[in-house]
């Protein structure tokens, strides 16, 4: 229903696209090709409804001139029945058309969203390194919506408007040529007004959007700072600032309202002029006996049908721009290159023993800046190694390569003697579990979140795994145990505690190879113990790589790899490395002396203070 309708018209912001419009349109049409049957139905319906719609004034005129004026009652019944049929046909066509347009639009969004999500999920790490999550989310949710609103609904409206317009002109032309020409005179005036106003509207509505955004920012700022505002008793000042932006928003709204208030009466007055000109000229012709009354009545009905499509058409450009900008972003995602791909002849990797070999591995994120330089590393099945080194030394990159989140620049990585580039990614990643530093919790319960490690696991399996890891009691202490909402739990738990969920996920997945990035967060000794126990359990019977941030913990593992500037500087057990008095020794001893610094600061502070 058309109430407040004009507000909907100028909301589409323009926005230039990088890809030429013609290419985008061709791609869009290609995506709509599967729905060619529905499109055919729509076009048919549009034609039927336009034609029948145009019939009604014609039949009305015919009824008056040929039957009512003549007094032919049977004829009147016949023509009324015909009129009725035409109108029912019109109604059915409109209803089917409305439904089919919605269907195509919704179906297209549905398909596009699934395709986009699939593409995004199967993209490589590199792609996500360069894309902002917010932009991708907005493309999946908003851009698809815009496309439906502006393009799908828009294009069929336009088609139907053009049909009606052409139909009206033809009908008028058939009825009376001079009257038609007179009516067409108002067209340029209407178009000019619509053109001038549509630009102003766009600006006015952009301003209201900007102003409401300012109000939002103001509220956000005030509320995030409310503790300071209240602490310093500055409520009035903050209220005044808010009022200022709220008032500006009000003024922008009023300005837009004023434009509307001028525009619509003007348009309707010009529409009136059309009617008046027809009445005047028609009356003149009729007085001379050159025009029948019925034709005049019918003509007047056509004139009112003439205006609406023209107003709609002026909106077309904005809509098209919005649709093109949205589809540009959509196709950008859909057509993005995946840089880590399964080879065509990739094989299924059977369950491995866990014999890992890095051979002359070089890797660079940015061309010319190697992060890993000629890494050679052999990890035997069941061996547990720790990787240590300063931030930026390449520890995380080294393990990312193992799961083929990135492809090596040169050299090769093999598991059980099979080059990881020759196997299917999925079969490779099934064999490796990653426990990242910070655990990401998905929507749902804690149970759901653990189960994600093995989606078909039963509740009992999950609980069993947690018991084996010694974290069952910890989970039961949460407000609702395993059924605790992950969001709620996430806020309450520390990074270390959240990592326990990752342990359970990995344990459930039960892979031969495990990669663990130690969480750094400080936890109380009890949790610390729980984490240590869980790690021991988790690593049993697996080949493991542990990225160790605390050197004191690294010494527990079979071998320590010291990474520095992308090169393996040293390797061996803690004792061996200490004896060598190399880089590891330096790191280790610096840390010991740093403990003395802490001590000194503490003592020093206490000492100075008590003397003052």
């Amino acid at each position: 229903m058309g109430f407040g309708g004009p507000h909907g018209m100028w909301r589409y912001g323009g926005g230039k696209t990088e890809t030429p419009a013609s290419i985008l349109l061709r791609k869009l049409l290609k995506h709509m090709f599967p729905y060619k049957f529905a499109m055919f139905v729509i076009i048919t319906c549009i034609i039927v409804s336009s034609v029948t719609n145009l019939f009604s004034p014609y039949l009305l005129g015919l009824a008056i001139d040929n039957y009512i004026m003549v007094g032919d009652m049977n004829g009147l019944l016949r023509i009324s029945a015909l009129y009725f049929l035409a109108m029912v046909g019109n109604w059915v066509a409109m209803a089917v058309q409305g439904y089919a347009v919605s269907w195509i639009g919704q179906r297209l969004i549905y398909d596009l969203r699934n395709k986009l999500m699939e593409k995004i999920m199967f993209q490589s790490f590199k792609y996500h390194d360069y894309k902002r999550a917010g932009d991708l989310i907005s493309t999946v949710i908003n851009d698809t919506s815009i496309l439906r609103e502006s393009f799908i609904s828009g294009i069929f409206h336009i088609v139907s408007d053009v049909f009606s317009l052409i139909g009206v002109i033809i009908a008028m032309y058939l009825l009376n040529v001079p009257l038609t020409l007179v009516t067409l005179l108002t067209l340029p005036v209407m178009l000019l007004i619509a053109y001038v106003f549509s630009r102003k509207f766009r600006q006015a509505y952009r301003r209201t959007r900007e102003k409401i955004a300012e109000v939002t920012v103001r509220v956000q700022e005030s509320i995030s700072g409310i503790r300071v505002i209240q602490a310093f008793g500055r409520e009035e000042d903050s209220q005044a600032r808010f009022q200022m932006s709220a008032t500006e928003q009000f003024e922008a709204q009023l300005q837009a309202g004023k434009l509307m208030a001028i525009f619509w009466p003007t348009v309707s007055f010009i529409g009136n002029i059309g009617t008046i000109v027809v009445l005047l000229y028609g009356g003149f012709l009729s007085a001379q006996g050159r025009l029948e009354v019925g034709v005049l009545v019918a003509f007047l009905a056509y004139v009112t049908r003439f205006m609406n499509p023209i107003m709609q058409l002026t909106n077309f450009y904005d809509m098209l721009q919005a649709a093109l900008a949205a589809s540009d972003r959509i196709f950008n995602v859909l057509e993005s290159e995946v840089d880590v791909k399964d080879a065509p002849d990739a094989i299924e990797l059977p369950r491995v023993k866990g014999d890992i070999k890095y051979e002359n591995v070089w890797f660079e994120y940015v061309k010319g800046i190697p992060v890993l330089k000629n890494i050679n590393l052999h990890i035997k099945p069941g061996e547990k190694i720790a990787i240590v080194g300063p931030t930026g030394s390449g520890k995380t990159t080294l393990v990312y390569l193992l799961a083929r989140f990135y492809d090596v620049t040169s050299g090769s990585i093999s598991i059980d003697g099979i080059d990881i580039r020759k196997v299917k990614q999925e079969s490779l990643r099934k064999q490796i579990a990653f426990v990242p530093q910070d655990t990401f919790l998905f929507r749902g319960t804690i149970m759901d979140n653990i189960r994600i490690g093995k989606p078909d696991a039963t509740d009992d399996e999950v609980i069993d795994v947690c018991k084996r890891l010694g974290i069952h009691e910890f989970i039961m202490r949460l407000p609702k145990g395993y059924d605790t909402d992950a969001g709620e739990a996430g806020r309450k738990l520390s990074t270390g505690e959240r990592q326990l969920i990752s342990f359970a996920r990995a344990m459930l997945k039960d892979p031969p190879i495990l990669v663990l990035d130690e969480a750094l967060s400080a936890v109380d000794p009890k949790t610390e113990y729980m984490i240590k126990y869980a790690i021991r359990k988790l690593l049993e019977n697996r080949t493991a790589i542990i990225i160790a941030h605390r050197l004191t913990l690294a010494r527990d593992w079979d071998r320590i790899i010291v990474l520095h500037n992308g090169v393996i500087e040293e390797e061996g057990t803690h004792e061996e490395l200490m004896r060598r008095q190399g880089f590891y020794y330096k790191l280790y001893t610096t840390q010991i002396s740093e403990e003395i610094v802490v001590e000194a600061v503490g003592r020093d502070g206490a000492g100075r203070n008590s003397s003052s």
Partner: protein
Amino acid sequence: MKRDTEKYVSIKTFARLIPYIRRYWKAFSVSVISMFLGSQLTTIAPSFMRSAIDNGVIKGDFQIVLSYVVLIIIVGLLSSVTSFFERYYTTLFSQKVALDFRNDVFRAVQRQSFSFFDEVPIGQLVSRITDDVERVARFLSFPLRNLISTAFLASLAIGYMWSMNPKLSAIVGLYMLGIMLISIRYNMIVRPLNMEARNQLGILTAITDNNITGFRTVKSLSVEKNRLNAFNVENEKLFSLYIRIAKVEALYGRLGLLLLILANITVLYVGGLDIINGSFTVGGLAAFNAYTLLLMRPVSFIGFFIGMFSIAMTSAKRLFDIIDRVPEVYEKPNAIELPPIKGEVVFENVWFGYVKDKPVLKGVNLHVKPGEKVAIIGRTGSGKSTLISLIPRFYDVTEGSIKIDGYDVRDVKLKSLRRQVAIVSQEPFVFAGSFKDNIALAKPEASMDEIVKAAKIAKLHDFIASLPNGYDSLIGERGITLSGGQKQRLTIARALVAGAKIIILDDPTSNLDAKTEREFIDDIKGILKDHTVFIVTQRLPLMMIADRIIVLDDGRVVEEGTHDELMSKRGLYYSIYVELYAKQKAELEKLLGEVEAEVVGSKDGGV
């Protein structure tokens, strides 16, 4: 039953909107009157057309046609003018109400005490102040005015039609009743569906967000298919919901139109017969059809109005709930101005809990002398942060009292109290604005000398002075980004300008790097020489500047004394100290990798 109470609430909510509406009754009246006049003019136009055809065209009298045309032009002009007034004043009225409403809600939000902000997320408040107010405004603009004028327009049109042909009018009336009922029914069906669809879209968005922000985890677990499936399921649900809506729209949404067409045809046939009988005219028939079309809008409007009304009132209710909410901490009517204090703080048997029956503080007694520096130590959840937030009365004690220089904090004006108690926190809040404004936050009338003096003491002056615009330089989003340490210094300068005697250091150094932390601690000892200072911290170096250490456990003071005394006691403080010591050692290891060289350098300087 449920629907009845729901309606009742809506009407009660609307009654509360009336005072706002009354404030701008003039603009509202102008818009309603303009619409009355406008609809009057709109209904007259077809009757002129009828006369032009019947009296002019058919009789072949062009003169009469001409005079009616002049009348139609005049009516058209007049109705354009009324239409302008109607639209303009409607916007003016609804936006004025929205503006007032917005200001009131914002004021009510600001009045709330901390417990409110602990509970309600910022996003929700933002959406109240922007979206909910907008929904109320939208309702106040066209729907409300239309309801009034629609009734009027409809009765006018019916009156005209009745005078032309009662029989036809009765027929049209019946059709209109049908259209109205369909419109109401349609709105009843479609509204809950739309709400469901909006909800479902929210779920889909949340999953999308989840899958994309958690991408690396998804990939690591190689559960892309599983996550994609979860997305597909929700996407499918949304799709089928939209299709249901489309079906309802295609059928119900257009049923009224079909009835209208039927009405037109009936008018043509029955009216045509009447013309043949000589009891009706051709012009009458044309006018009748025009009136029937005119009635279509007001009639189908009823259903639309009901939908709009309940949406707007739901929003209004949420807003009134905020406005009505009595802040937990409020000023007594007879509150006195707290005179400049020396800085003595006494806790007498203080009990406090955020939730009923779950006390966080259980009978705390504490006497802090002016100028004393006290560290509050305890494990997570022992009540440290709660204890200090009671001093500036961010929350009220459940039992007992807190006195500053002998004044109960509940007996003094909030502003005078909070001005003298400053908090330097871990994440100091800096407003978008200049350095000057930020430092003089509590005392906008402060002179430039005062501001500069405070900045000098806080050791921020040199930095500010080095900027091209000095104290007028902007900070925040569009200006300079301050480092952690600079933000802490800014809050200290703020407290100094405010003349705060009591300073609360709420873990201010935990986000600073070791070097900045050292500098900050060294400086603060001098700056706060004459202030009463409360320190809550996890950092050993900061803890060490305290004269006295209070150890909290489970809401009670379990130990107190100097560092050395407590260490020799080998109690809770000792074990916390040892833990922290071990923990901070580990943090330094991490630091080691990042600033290896620098750390080695500072070691030489430190020992």
